[in-house]
């Protein structure tokens, strides 16, 4: 009896490093050899896709790269596929970021990959760079764009950009997309763009913030959202551009499975221990 109890104790107080090594292995294997599990498409992704698909050509869309390098593995795939869809539909994106390095990430990782031949900077898309000052900065940007970004990311005065001739405030945006990993995030965008100027909002969410976004989606303040890497994968399938997200989701699945098994083992150990105790008691 006491021997089985010893094992159970050991399971309950397992060295965490065993868990850590398991995690590394279960994520590495599907990266090396993907399994290609099917990806069902969520309603919220479809509603985001439909909204973008129905915008008239040439509409100005604000895209908030509200992430740093660390959030990129999750938000990058979403931003990339949104941008690709935007370019495919001949919409005109304005890139901004309230994060110090968001605009740079766009220049380094998104534009070179997603740009279509024939698109001209300043005419078909612009990058207005970093907005300092958190929500205050966003509020100022919304009411007059040049008040916080008089020059774009490359140092050109905004008035000299052809696309910005008729775009002076948030009232000229037909849609705002925000992919954020903290502040500024969907809440700031909702307050400053949606409630103040009535700009429809699509959120490219981190999965962790989805529970906070669902209430806004239910109350129709957010027209659609994509859920992390999973959402990016769904969007890649919807737009027929399967890429990084689709390929990486298998690793996510295997990680979830391993954690679930760990949870089950932990609980079985507790239940078994109670059972052993009871038996010893009688």
């Amino acid at each position, binding site marked *: 009896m006491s021997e089985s109890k010893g094992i159970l104790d050991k399971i309950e107080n397992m060295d965490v490093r065993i868990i850590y090594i398991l995690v590394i292995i279960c994520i590495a294997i599907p990266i090396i050899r993907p399994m290609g599990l099917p990806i069902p498409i969520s309603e919220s992704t479809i509603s985001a896709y439909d909204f973008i698909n129905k915008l008239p050509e040439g509409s100005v869309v604000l895209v908030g790269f509200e992430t740093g390098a*660390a959030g990129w593995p999750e938000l990058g795939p979403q931003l990339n596929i949104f941008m690709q869809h935007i370019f495919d539909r001949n919409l005109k994106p304005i890139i901004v970021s309230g994060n110090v390095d968001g605009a740079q990430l766009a220049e380094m990782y998104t534009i070179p990959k997603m740009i279509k031949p024939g698109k001209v900077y300043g005419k078909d898309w612009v990058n207005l760079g970093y907005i300092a000052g958190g929500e205050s900065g966003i509020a100022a940007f919304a009411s007059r764009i040049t008040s916080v970004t008089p020059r774009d990311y490359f140092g050109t005065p905004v008035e000299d950009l052809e696309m910005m001739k008729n775009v002076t405030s948030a009232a000229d945006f037909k849609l705002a997309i925000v992919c954020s990993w903290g502040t500024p995030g969907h809440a700031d965008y909702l307050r400053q763009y949606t409630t103040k100027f009535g700009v429809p909002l699509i959120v490219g969410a981190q*999965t962790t913030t989805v529970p906070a976004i669902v209430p806004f989606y239910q109350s129709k303040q957010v027209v659609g959202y994509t859920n992390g890497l999973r959402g990016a994968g769904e969007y890649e399938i919807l737009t027929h551009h399967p890429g990084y997200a689709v390929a990486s989701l298998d690793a996510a699945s295997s990680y979830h499975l391993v954690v679930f098994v760990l949870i089950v083992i932990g609980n079985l150990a507790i239940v078994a221990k109670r059972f052993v105790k009871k038996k010893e008691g009688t």
Partner: protein
Amino acid sequence: MSFLRSRYINVAIIFIAAFLMIFTYFFKVQALSDAATLVQTTVSLFAAFTLALGAMNLTLIAYRQVQKKAPTALFSVLAIAVMLMMIITGLIPPLMNSPQFNWLYNNVEAPTDSTMYAMMVFFVASACFRAFRARSKEALVMLVVGSFIIFTYAPIGATIWPGLPAIGSWIEKYPMTGASRGFSIGVALGGLGIGLRILLGREKAVTGE
């Protein structure tokens, strides 16, 4: 000049700035809206100035450590050296866009930052192992809900049984939305309360003694 040190100046600045922002949200008066935008531009500018404070404090700490020959001094000097490297490459024209700067960003800043975040994968797993144990009824609720949500978000859930994500989405759409609303309404009220206390100068931590 002692009146300059009084905290009432701070309170007055805070109050006027906040009032301007709130008033122009509800009412349209062109002159005040322009003033509000100017204040916001100024705030953006100030925020940019504060970005350098971290570097200054870091240098100060490193200096003190070197002076005291503290055991961490060497590490602090390393941090300062890396910091200077980043600043110098950043200043090479085109500002913040030189190949050297981008190289540093790409190969040092981005990987350290994102790997640190990625470390959570371990901590979440081990914390799950510990948190999701049915020690009490409350923990049991968390465990069951958590498990359904796990299989709602991971594509493998639907492969195992399509019912799993369906139940998970239902939880997300109804009971969780309800609780989330209740929680955030409360936090929003608390935030308003503190905002009001700061505006009235009752929060000495913010306005100074």
